């Protein structure tokens, strides 16, 4: 491409286009990642079948909507179905894999493959899609799906919801205690088994919700979940293990990068930029944005001035020696 040419985003319509693309990208990153990051951040399981949890949500929503259920009801059905599915899977298989990250990856990958093929055998190569609500926004020479933009609002609501669940409820308090120290939590009367089941169910429900919300916008094939995997894992790598802070900051950063490169160059370059950002993030911030922020916070607590406390993490980030402990 010709780099000397004036970028196309200088007129107002293009700016609006850039903004909408950012919102769309942010929503997709956040929603793709939340289920994965809850299950990874809270339980230490790297769920390679995450895409197939989304598949369960997408298919059950689509089937319900095509059968005549109003869209909102279909979304609820999809979310709940995935939660139940996740809990059954946790009880029957995954509970054996706590604290065994490598084994859990093999097991969840196997589940993923079986589910994709199982879906193909049972439903065939595609099923009828549900129609997209809302129509589109038109401005100047462009138009954008209003529904995809509305999902940005939903993704923010989902992040706030997760934050409230983990900080304001009895379940959230017990879940955080269990994750920090399961033995002590048990000695405080917490039924940790139940907390694991509920947390896994919650993570599954979030993945199901993502599948449900994107069901009308994607073609319903057995690989539909694979659309989300790259964004989900990139967002988790860049965000780190903090569910709400990590995911939202990763969503903003990566959403901006993706929107800019997609808009100025092409969707292809948007994708390349996203992957390049992930590689850089692994090199520079091995514990993600969460790690860098915790590092700064620890230094502040140790009595350094804000200026000083920012200095050292910045150096370690640039030299790539960032450590979290």
């Amino acid at each position, binding site marked *: 491409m010709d780099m000397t040419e004036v970028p196309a985003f200088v007129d107002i319509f293009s700016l609006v286009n850039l903004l909408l693309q950012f919102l769309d990208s942010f929503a997709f990153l956040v929603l793709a990642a939340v289920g994965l990051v809850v299950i990874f951040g809270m339980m230490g399981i790297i769920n390679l079948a995450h895409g197939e949890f989304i598949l369960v949500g997408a298919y059950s929503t689509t089937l319900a909507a095509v059968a005549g259920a109003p869209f909102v009801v279909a979304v609820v059905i999809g979310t709940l179905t995935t939660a139940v599915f996740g809990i059954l899977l946790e009880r029957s298989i995954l509970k054996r894999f706590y604290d065994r990250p490598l084994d859990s990856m093999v097991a969840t990958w196997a589940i993923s493959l079986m589910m994709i093929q199982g879906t193909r055998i049972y439903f065939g190569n595609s099923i009828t899609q549900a129609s997209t609500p809302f129509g589109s926004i038109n401005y100047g020479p462009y138009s954008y799906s209003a529904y995809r933009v509305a999902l940005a609002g939903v993704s923010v609501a989902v992040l706030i919801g997760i934050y409230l669940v983990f900080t304001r409820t*009895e379940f959230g308090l*017990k879940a955080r205690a269990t994750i920090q*120290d399961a*033995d002590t939590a048990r*000695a*405080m*009367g*917490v039924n940790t088994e139940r907390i694991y089941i509920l947390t896994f169910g919650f993570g599954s429900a979030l993945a199901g919700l993502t599948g449900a919300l994107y069901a009308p916008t994607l073609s319903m094939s057995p690989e539909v979940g694979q659309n989300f995997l790259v964004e989900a894992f990139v967002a988790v790598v860049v965000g780190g293990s903090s569910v709400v802070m990590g995911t939202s900051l990763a969503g903003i950063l990566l959403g901006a990068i993706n929107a800019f490169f997609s808009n100025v160059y092409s969707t292809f370059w948007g994708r390349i930029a996203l992957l390049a950002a992930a590689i850089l993030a692994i090199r520079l911030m091995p514990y993600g944005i969460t790690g860098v922020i915790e590092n700064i916070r620890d230094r502040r607590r140790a009595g350094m001035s804000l200026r000083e406390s920012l200095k050292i993490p910045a150096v370690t980030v640039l030299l790539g020696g960032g450590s979290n402990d």
Partner: protein
Amino acid sequence: MLEMENVTASYGPTPILRDVNLHVEEGEIVGVMGKNGVGKTTLVKTVIGLLGADEGTVRFKGEDVTTAEPTVSERLKESVASRVRGSKVGDRIADRLVADGGGQVTANQRARRGMGYIPQGRDVFPKLTVEQNLRLGEGVNAEAENDLYDLVYDYFPILEERKDQKAGTMSGGQQQMLAIGRALVGNPDLLLLDEPSEGIQPSIVEQIGEDMQRINDELGVTILFVEQNLDLVQTMADRCYALDKGTVVDELDSDDLSDKEAVAKYLAV
């Protein structure tokens, strides 16, 4: 209040406790002393139920906590097992099904029955605030009321001052107070302390010893603690057991406890 009868416990294939017999009466402060590695922590964990006893009985308030009522799924497995038995394959399936059966009362259930546990190294939840840590202790006791918080804040005013601070940022002594407070909010009948002096400066150790005596005196809470700090054993305990190589080797009454040399020989390295 608490009895251990011929209790044997192990981590995997390594036996740690052998034939432990001890009893704690209501209102007593009983110490268990011993050097590093004689099984003190294992003993406390076997009482609270974080580690199951292999053999023997732990009785709490007269009830055996080492045998639990079978759960629904255990009963289901049992009935399936009895049905498939008869053939070679059937027997193997049945054996698998009931292999990990015969459960014990779990730690969270024991806590709810009135055991308060203060783990070694405090083990407060570092990323939760002081108040959130206390609220977790309250979960044990459905009827916990506000006056229990007032009581805890009364014993340890520093906890009220710092209630919104993250527990991980406090000093060792303050974390120990929080761990004690967290157990007290659950309104326990028996407090279990695993080496309360570990990693804490001597003046604070002395203060914690006094606090524990006050708590025992004023609230009537029975206390069992394991310890290797000579001074704390002497000041706190009414009675003491000496533990060596995983078994009780001696029992010391209050007269024996005042004899520094008699006590020290079980603690010397």
